[in-house]
């Protein structure tokens, strides 16, 4: 054995910056404490806690991971652990492994307090300090706001007021659930309050649609395939139709939904996100600000609808009594907890225009509703008809369509014209359908698993930036204002149908709605 002992200098300089991490595609996130405000609420129980368990099961949580629940209810740590266990056992997508669940629960704590009360934050700060001390290192802190939206500003203010917004040697982030405001004014004010306390890089505004694997796949299909992008413009595309149909009704959420309506509930966030991903220019890099910057350009390019033109661009509807899936269902206004005087829309159809070189003249139709004939989320891109058809008397030739189905199954379908076998040249439309969801030898994670992991990592790509959410509201607010000024009730449609007849009026001549 050699007795040479080189000096302890410059050895690390010879190595790459993070040598063991290179080549590993799934390095766990840095050690963190996740603080859930609204820890006993419905979202936490149904989505967040099961998502955390599944991340733990797969070994995807940080090396050191602690969870602190904050809520008004009086609970001990053990009492909250019981609630967490029950939520995971009931809602996890996989049966929990007892040893993993027990180990996870050992790292669960609870702080009692109202979201606007100083005591809660003093207790929280004390607990966070204890966890850092036990870990022997400052842990990253992720504050997850899973509360009623009216508390968002107050919680962020308290986080700042108690010195929890920044610290040396570790990162602090705040995840804010939707809805981010209920009006443009509220959203602007909330952004102002949040950004008084936090830097934008610390703010993760959730839109769980972006966590869906299929939505991310849209980016791959567009920007990694030469097949689509060359025709992705006004020269080849006649129209775009984005549909998010739901067969379900209120599912016990009348209190929230009657105050929101379909436009705020789905269009302001999810469907505008789909429109952006479909319409945006290729980003220079697959990085958070590159992608979000391109989406903001699209949102800002959406033409604002003048109030006197609103009837040609927007339709609101409300379901009446009908039958869905063979069950007789009541009209919206007869649903439990819906006031008889409600004017809330359960259906929206919009015709939007994206004023860019690429999309000038191409109508973007958006449609969503409850109690429609079935559950379906899809984007249908209709191509321009061929300029000349040589097959005289050959039958109907419909324009090609590319349909990306997001729910309930992940499909891409391309509608083509094909020759009917036989001696004549008769053409008929056929579809070439394929399902790509499970081709890649892994099960897609739940959207919340992906989004929580990204928040723990600090990757904001799938979260909404301040200017993005403001641009979304700038599109929506004129419609809300016009409807608020219009005393007439939403157009009625029968539950189980494809929406009100009046949706036809916003279509350009020759266009038609796809069947839901």
């Amino acid at each position, binding site marked *: *054995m*050699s007795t*040479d*002992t*080189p*000096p*302890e200098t*410059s*050895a*690390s300089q*010879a*190595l790459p*910056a*993070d*040598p*063991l*991490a*290179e*080549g*590993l*595609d*799934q*390095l*766990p996130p*840095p050690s963190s404490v996740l603080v859930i405000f609204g820890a006993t609420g419905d979202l936490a129980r149904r989505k967040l806690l099961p998502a955390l368990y599944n991340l*733990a*099961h*797969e*070994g995807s*949580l940080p*090396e050191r*991971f602690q969870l602190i629940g904050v809520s008004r209810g009086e609970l001990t740590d053990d009492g909250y652990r019981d609630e967490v266990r029950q939520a995971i056992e009931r809602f996890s997508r996989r049966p929990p*492994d007892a040893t*993993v*669940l*027990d*180990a*996870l629960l*050992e790292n669960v704590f609870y702080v009692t307090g109202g979201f606007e009360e100083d005591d809660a934050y003093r207790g929280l700060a004390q607990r966070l300090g204890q966890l*850092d*001390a*036990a*870990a*022997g*290192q400052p842990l990253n802190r992720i504050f997850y706001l899973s509360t009623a939206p009216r508390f968002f500003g107050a919680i962020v203010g308290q986080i700042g007021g108690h010195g929890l917004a920044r610290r040396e040697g570790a990162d602090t982030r705040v995840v804010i659930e939707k809805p981010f405001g209920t009006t443009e004014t509220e959203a602007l004010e909330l952004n102002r309050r949040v950004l008084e306390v936090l830097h934008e890089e610390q703010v993760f505004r959730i839109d769980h649609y972006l966590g869906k694997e299929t939505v991310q796949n849209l980016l791959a299909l567009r920007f990694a395939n030469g097949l689509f992008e060359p025709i992705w413009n006004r020269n080849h595309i006649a129209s775009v139709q984005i549909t998010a149909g739901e067969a379900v009704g209120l599912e016990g959420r009348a209190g929230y939904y009657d105050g929101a309506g379909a436009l705020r509930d789905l269009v302001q966030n999810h469907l505008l996100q789909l429109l952006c991903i479909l319409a945006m220019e290729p980003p220079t890099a697959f990085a958070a600000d590159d992608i979000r910057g391109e989406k903001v350009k699209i949102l800002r390019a959406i033409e604002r609808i003048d109030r006197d033109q609103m009837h040609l661009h927007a339709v609101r509807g409300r379901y009446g009594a009908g039958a869905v899936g063979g069950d007789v269902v009541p009209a919206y206004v007869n649903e439990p907890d819906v006031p008889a005087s409600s004017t809330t829309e359960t259906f929206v159809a919009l015709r939007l225009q994206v004023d860019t070189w690429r999309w000038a003249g191409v109508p973007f139709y958006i449609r969503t509703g409850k109690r429609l004939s079935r559950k379906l989320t899809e984007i249908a891109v209709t191509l321009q008809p061929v300029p000349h058809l040589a097959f005289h008397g050959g039958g109907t030739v419909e324009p090609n369509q590319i349909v990306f189905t997001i729910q*309930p*199954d992940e*499909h891409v*379908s391309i509608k083509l014209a094909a020759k009917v076998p036989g001696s004549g040249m008769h053409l008929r439309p056929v579809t070439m*359908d*394929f*399902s*790509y*969801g*499970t*081709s890649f*030898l*892994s*099960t*897609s994670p739940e959207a919340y698993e992906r989004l929580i992991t990204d928040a723990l990592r600090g990757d904001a790509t799938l979260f909404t930036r301040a200017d993005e959410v403001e641009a979304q509201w700038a599109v929506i607010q004129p419609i809300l204002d016009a409807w608020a000024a219009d005393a007439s009730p939403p157009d009625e449609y029968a539950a189980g149908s494809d929406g009100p007849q009046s949706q036809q009026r916003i279509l350009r001549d020759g266009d038609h709605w796809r069947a839901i």
Partner: protein
Amino acid sequence: MSTVAHTVWQQDDVDPAGVEEAMRALERERFRQRSALPARALNLVTVVDADDADEVVRRLAATGGNAPSRSILLRVHPDRSRLSARVTLAADGDAGDRTSAMNELVTVDVGLRHLSRLESIVDPMVLTDVPTLLWAPHDHRGAIESLVPLAQTVLLDSSDAALATTGLDEALALQAAHAVGVVDLSWMRTLPWRQRLAAAFSPPSRRDELARIGDVEVRHQPGSAAAAWLVLGWLAARLRWTAVGDEVRDAAGHEVHLRLVSSDVGVAGLAGTTVTSRTGAHFALDRNPGGLRARYAPPEGAAGSGGDAADRERSWTILGASRGETGVLSAALRRTLVPDDGYREALATARRLIQCT
């Protein structure tokens, strides 16, 4: 509620073209019943002893949604002279949000006499334009040689050999002889350990410790020494350790002591690892209920000296369920589709370390 429907075709004394024709017919029938065909990503060709085929089939079936798009299972019978084949198309439909999948299993009974010309039998059956993974868990090397022109990747387990050196040498030889990638189940078993070691030393405040590592002990299940050597090979390659004579030295020339310890934990792969720095600080990971038990001890003489929590010995659990051999196989199948994370380099380095030590 999930439902699984199977469509089956079976025939004795069949030629490969007949199997391929039957598959296309089943596919047309399937398409008539369901509107969408699955996009396909991977062929898996598996060669097994007929008597032990069921265990392999169970392992593959357990991968569930991770199963390859098309699996071709060649069951080798000692005296068989004619081929027989069975094709099963399984459609897993789910009424909920989850996606639906359809997998295709082609089972072909062959004899030993067919092994040298398996390529001509299997060629018509593989999906074109998607990668093909080749696996011979019962050591049918002749089959590998015959089929490797069809494959882009070979799946093996370097722990299958009686000696770790033999298993690693076989993987090296396969890479050297053919332009194929290798996915090694022993390497896949080490993935969580590598991830956790990498994560432990990823914070900038801890990266300097990598340059001060003076001793590494890897504890492994008896029979899994190859996995232990691969982890050492990975560490050495990443940290630029070199074998000098009978010693291993780091990038600055300090000696690094490497040690393998056999430890029966009842699970193939690693049992634990301890990384010790020249200052006496050490970081250890060991299998534990609910995940891995991590232990950190500060440098000698530092413990408690400053009253700082960072100076205390600590232990904690890193959460994670055991993946089991099914999970390892699933990860290996997926590895075929994503870039290798350093196996080739780790393998070559591991082999040099063995020679050195």
